[in-house]
């Protein structure tokens, strides 16, 4: 059984803002992160993920609850404990790297060791090792402003690992890099984690980044935890509409369920080829994704291809279903032309209640803070 490295219990953070009133940025967060895990906190801006990370780091104090690092309480509202960041023994990489421009690469990476009064020879050795692991050997005397974004990211990484922390915090670590570099850094991070065995908690709004890196993910919305699970489970079995649409391309169909058959709104004569869920309501939302729809089966809802676009790695079709539209993505080798008839089969859809979505307004309000 893996050890718990980071634990949050009933953590809540309230802010009082002048312009927008009281806001609960983080509402009763409870979760555990295990040793050696790569754990991400994912959500739109204003969902509380950054506040949560800053509380773990110690830059913000919580309003209620407790935070434990390796079993030791570092923040506790009840016991009035607040350990400042410099005593939490963490590694952290910030979104804009936060590499000090007035120090060269060596000095940047050596800084945490100097603070700890490590002897000079050991500093030299450990810094060189950290630079080696982040592919920065040879650049010891360069200054950050002479280096690229990717290299600056590596300096930040080297500086974070040089003290061998047990927990690494990453705040949107890859969003300031160009797409190609993002992928490279992703792999290097994973490799570093496997080599050193530290626990990673990182925060991002980019679901593809989170899915590619994480062992488990926490999806947050408006200060609340929506779901904690592996990327596959979150993608395939999202617990609500928000998580479904946040984790990838989604299509939501309003459907009418009658006599055990499912009809798309606008076409009550021809049922869709799906089984209604248990406890079905008369009206529900059927949730699916473009790659979860088959067009070449023998059974299915009959309709015609309305538009077709070739994308680089798939073909995208739009087909009318009832008075709505479905986006379907297939490999190139499956070819229909516009106007061709096809049979639509939706594989393993998710079902959600029909709801009024005032939530979007609240999400936008939170983004302003």
């Amino acid at each position, binding site marked *: 059984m893996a050890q718990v490295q980071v634990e949050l219990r009933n953590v809540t953070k309230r802010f009082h803002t002048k312009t927008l009133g009281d806001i609960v940025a983080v509402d009763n967060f409870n979760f555990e992160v295990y040793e050696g895990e790569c754990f991400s906190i994912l959500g739109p801006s204003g969902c509380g993920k950054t506040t949560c990370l800053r509380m773990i780091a110690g830059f913000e104090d919580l309003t209620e609850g407790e935070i434990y690092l390796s079993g030791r309480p570092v923040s506790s509202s009840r016991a009035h404990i607040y350990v400042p960041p410099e005593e939490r023994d963490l590694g952290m990489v910030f979104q804009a790297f936060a590499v000090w421009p007035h120090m060269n690469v060596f000095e940047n990476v050596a800084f945490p060791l100097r603070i700890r009064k490590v002897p000079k020879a050991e500093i030299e050795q450990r810094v060189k090792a950290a630079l080696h692991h982040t592919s920065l050997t040879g650049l010891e005397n360069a200054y950050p402003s002479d280096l690229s974004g990717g290299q600056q990211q590596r300096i930040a990484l080297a500086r974070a690992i040089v003290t061998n922390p047990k927990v690494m915090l990453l705040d949107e670590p890859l969003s300031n890099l160009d797409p190609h570099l993002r992928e490279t850094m992703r792999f290097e991070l994973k490799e570093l984690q496997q080599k050193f065995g530290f626990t990673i908690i990182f925060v991002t709004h980019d679901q593809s980044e989170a899915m590619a890196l994480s062992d488990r993910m926490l999806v947050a919305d408006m200060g609340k935890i929506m779901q904690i699970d592996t*990327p596959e489970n979150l993608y395939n079995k999202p617990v609500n509409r928000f998580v479904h649409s946040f984790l990838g391309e989604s299509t939501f169909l309003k459907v009418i369920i009658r006599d055990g058959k499912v009809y798309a709104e606008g076409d009550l004569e021809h049922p869709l080829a799906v089984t209604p869920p248990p406890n079905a309501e008369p009206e529900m939302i059927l949730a699916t994704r473009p*790659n979860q729809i088959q067009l070449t089966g023998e059974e299915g809802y009959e309709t015609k291809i309305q538009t077709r676009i*070739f*994308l*680089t*790695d798939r073909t995208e079709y739009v087909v009318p279903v009832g008075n709505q539209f479905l986006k379907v993505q297939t490999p*190139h080798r499956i070819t229909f032309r516009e106007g061709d008839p096809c049979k639509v089969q939706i594989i393993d859809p998710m079902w959600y209640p029909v709801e009024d979505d005032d939530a979007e307004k609240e999400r936008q309000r939170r983004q302003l803070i």
Partner: protein
Amino acid sequence: MPYVRFENISFAYGEKQVLKNFSLSLEKNEIMCLVGPSGCGKTTLVRCLLGLNRPAEGEIFVGDTCVFSSKRRINVPPERRGIGIVFQDYAVWPHLTVKENIAYPLRKRGLSKDEIQRRVESVLELVSMRDYINHLPNQLSGGQQQRVAIARALMTSDDLIVMDEPITNLDAKLREQMLFEIRQLQRNLGTTIFYITHDQKAALHLGDQIAIMDPHGGLVQVGSDEDFILRPKNRFVFEFIGVTNFLTLKPVNSSYSLDVGSQLIPWPEKLPDVLKNGRAIDVGVRPNDIVFDASSPIRGIVRRSVFLGSEYEYFVQLGDKELRVQLGTLEAAQSGHVKEGSEVGLRFLNPHYYEAVREEAWK
């Protein structure tokens, strides 16, 4: 009959020759997407069309009118060309309201106040910005400002509009939405749109016709999305669109073999005769055109597998090369998920063959 014609346009910035004998035609009522890497000259071409840059040579026609001709010394100033433009940074005037911004081209044409009001209201309706008619730009989001810019361009002309990277500054979800809206707008109005971008996805989504430029300002291919994906004209186009893997085939005796560093594997597919000239051949294949086939003699080892939601991405080591393989999650579910470290057989569907770029020394 082409609506917009560029003929033999040449343009240089000081020493640097950006466009040379460039020719392109746009059909009426279509969206033409001009794609190319940054700095290839797309924006320069657009500025020549608008009259903001003056080509050294060539002719430009819009409809029946010649707006520029170096031979005949014609150069219609920008204010008389009647072409709407949507810039990358929206260029919505911050000191004027939405209504004043959009009404400006109409004021310049001397339309009556009532007529202006009517047209402004109707175009705002079209871009779903009716409620913001008296707002100032700093009260609008990026997407809303972009819609104002589009509305203003439509007031200059609903015959021809140029859009230069209009959605690059918007976030991902908004970009999708704007692409859809632009497409809808064009369908409703029939406007000819010249859309410039480096974003292939936008081009594939929008373009009735797509034109690709190479980094040196040359026009490489013009065609539909299907043409580009299924029938790329040359290696540049093939590599430019999407991700590609490249392998090298070496001639061995009378046939070709795949060189993976440690061994040579006979190549099972048929090769085009024109390339069988005794020199090495580069094979390009897209990640989604590689499948796992246990019976294939070409064996690799899965080094990494990444779950991306709608597909799995595998990094497979083949000799000294690393290949990217993409498998849709549906297919992966059917064929079974492949674990990291396992050996797999690889089959290449739809390979593209090109003359080798580098002559490698081989035994």
